[in-house]
């Protein structure tokens, strides 16, 4: 018996995007177009499901000739920018939409979680919605009966289980919805970015449940924009771009490639702050003009391996030269401040400098886990009064290449020094 569970061969999907109608700016034209509008409307609606070769200008291929195979028990991540075809792929494999050409074969039962709480009805109680949502997701009544207490316990809604869900807080609602989804038990599970629900504590619980599911030998296809989650859960990842697979391989390599390509195009590791349109407070005597992140060779870089050194370099325009204080605040995506590094705490001399100064700060060993981090820069004068504060001035990514440690639940990466005494 082969271990193959999903086989995708040359799968393609074509969609029609609406092309704007021609508009008339004279009265006669408008009246005529209004009279014939039923006919044009009919043709337009009919064309939603009919495709000819002659009207190629409003057809897009959301997916083109995608082929891959998934083995039993594999956890496959699917990443790519918006519009790359990730959701289309999941919808086809979930049998929600039909491919235009190609074929996919799935040897097992599929459950798909493209959203949580599908079919929830506000007027029905939590209990009734568990059964409704559960059967919609493909569970049988007896399966739900068996898991009912676990679902309620996981959702933490407890005594509100017989209250109509429209009276629930939004947090309770998503917790209940996720609790049902978390107890699905199919051979293949297809998940689309549904983990970002609830408060931080519940998110953590969901992630824990997901990795538990993933490691119980089930096959999982997982789409996410959160590289941290992908790296935590998936051993193999596919990168989609414009409906095609551009890379298929080990998660760390694919994610690294994706982030590198992403940042290359966008900010190239340097942010010119002279014309900064983001959140900023500034007074003008001292001004940040650019920020860069550098690797150990002093080259501009936005992707760092765990334990790599990172150098943050800023250019400062200095008008009065009374000296300055500079601090960097580094946040993770959940807005936890992971580093707060201040020039006051070092012995750097910041007085009697040129009108244009470049300052470098190096963290010799980055101990952050794989994720995307943002840098806030706070620049003050010698009296520690605010001169320029740029939020989210830059982002950088931490990847894990070549380090065996994985699945850490903390923000800080620390192996520790161990001994048996």
């Amino acid at each position, binding site marked *: *018996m082969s271990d193959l569970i999903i086989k995708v061969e040359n799968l393609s999907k074509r*969609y029609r995007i609406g092309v704007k109608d021609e508009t008339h700016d004279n009265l006669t034209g408008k009246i005529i177009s209004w009279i014939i509008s039923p006919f044009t409307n*009919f043709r337009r*609606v*009919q064309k*939603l*499901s009919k495709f000819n070769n002659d009207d190629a200008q409003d057809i897009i291929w959301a997916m083109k000739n995608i082929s891959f195979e998934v083995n039993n028990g594999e956890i496959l991540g699917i990443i790519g920018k918006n519009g790359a075809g990730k959701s289309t792929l999941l*919808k*086809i*494999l*979930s*049998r*929600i*939409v*039909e*491919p*235009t*050409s*190609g*074929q*996919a*074969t*799935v*040897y*097992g*039962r*599929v459950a*798909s979680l*493209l*959203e949580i709480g*599908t*079919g929830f*009805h506000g*007027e*029905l109680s939590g209990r*009734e919605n568990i*059964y*409704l949502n559960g*059967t*919609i*997701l*493909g*569970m*049988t*009544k007896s399966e739900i009966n068996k898991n009912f207490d676990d679902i309620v316990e996981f959702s933490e809604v407890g005594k509100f289980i017989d209250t*109509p869900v429209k009276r629930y807080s939004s947090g309770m609602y998503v917790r209940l919805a996720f609790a049902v989804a978390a107890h699905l038990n199919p*051979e293949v599970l297809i998940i689309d970015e549904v983990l970002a629900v609830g408060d931080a504590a519940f998110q953590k619980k969901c992630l824990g449940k997901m990795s538990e599911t993933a490691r119980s030998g089930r096959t999982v296809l997982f789409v996410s924009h959160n590289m941290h989650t992908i790296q935590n859960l998936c051993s193999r990842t596919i990168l989609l771009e414009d409906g095609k697979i551009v890379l298929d391989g080990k998660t760390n390599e694919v994610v690294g490639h994706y982030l590198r390509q992403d940042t290359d195009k966008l900010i190239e590791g340097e942010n010119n702050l002279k014309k900064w349109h983001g959140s900023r407070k500034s007074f003008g005597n001292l001004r940040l003009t650019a920020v860069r992140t550098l690797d150990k060779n002093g080259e501009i870089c936005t992707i760092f391996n765990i334990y790599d050194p990172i150098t943050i370099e800023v250019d400062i325009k200095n008008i009065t030269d009374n000296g300055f204080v500079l601090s960097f605040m580094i946040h993770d995506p959940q807005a936890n401040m992971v580093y707060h590094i201040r020039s006051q705490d070092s012995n750097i001399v910041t007085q009697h400098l040129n009108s244009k100064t470049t300052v470098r700060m190096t963290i010799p060993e980055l101990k952050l886990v794989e994720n995307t981090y943002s840098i806030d820069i706070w620049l003050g004068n010698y009296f520690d009064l605010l001169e320029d504060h740029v939020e989210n001035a830059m982002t950088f990514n931490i990847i894990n290449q070549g380090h065996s440690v994985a699945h850490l639940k903390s923000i800080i990466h620390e192996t520790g020094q161990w001994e048996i005494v």
Partner: protein
Amino acid sequence: MKSKTSTPVHVVIIKPKTGWQLIDWKELKEYKDLIYFLILRDVKALYKQTVLGFSWAILKPFIKMIVFSIVFGGIAKIPSDDIPYPLFVYAGLVPWEYFSNSLTRSTSSLISGSGIFTKVYFPRLIMPIVPCMATLVDFTIALSIVFILMFYFGYAISITIFYLPILIIIMILTAAGLGMWLSALAIQYRDVPYGVQFLVQILMYAAPVIYPISWLPESYRIYLAIYPMYGIIEGSRAAILGQNAMPWDLIGIGAISAFIMFITGAYYFKRKERIFADVA
């Protein structure tokens, strides 16, 4: 892993389908729990947060009965086969209300359920069928009132009441058959639900709800019977009140046409099914 070799592997092949599709009855059976809970949802959610609750299932045909008795029975003096007009019209309104509610709800079932079927796979055929089942609850409640009215007007329950289940089955087939046709059209052409509002009104006057079949020339009846509700309304009245003979000829023609509507509806729905998520 070992247990897997003994259990047959569930294989799904996903590829573009063209032309007519067979109906997978086995798959529908696998989803019987879903069908049950969707029906339960429709039934439970219908009268939630109303003061009168399921009394509305009685009030809707009852109020219509009063209005029709005044307008058609009292003012227009439409004959009613020597049956008291309120009883006559209520016995016709009970199946009619079922049909019109089922048809309207079934037609919009895909539109109102697009949030579900664009996110999860299940046999889409369930969608237009569920409202036709859920409305049976209203039908049963409204039907029980007929017996109170009969008691009030001094009618005894006839043995012919046992024919009613046959009529109910034909009635469900008609509503579901048309519902499958119209819901498959409605998901792409959103004019359909508006059109159905008028269609339902016209269909009410085409069926002998407010008038007896004896009101029209006999030669027309055979043709009108192609519309199944024609025989069903008259048949239910005969079965419940036991006054007229059961119009088996009309019911028979209606049953054949209901069956054709159901089968063609199911196949048309299956044929269009593959585009639902794309046009929804």
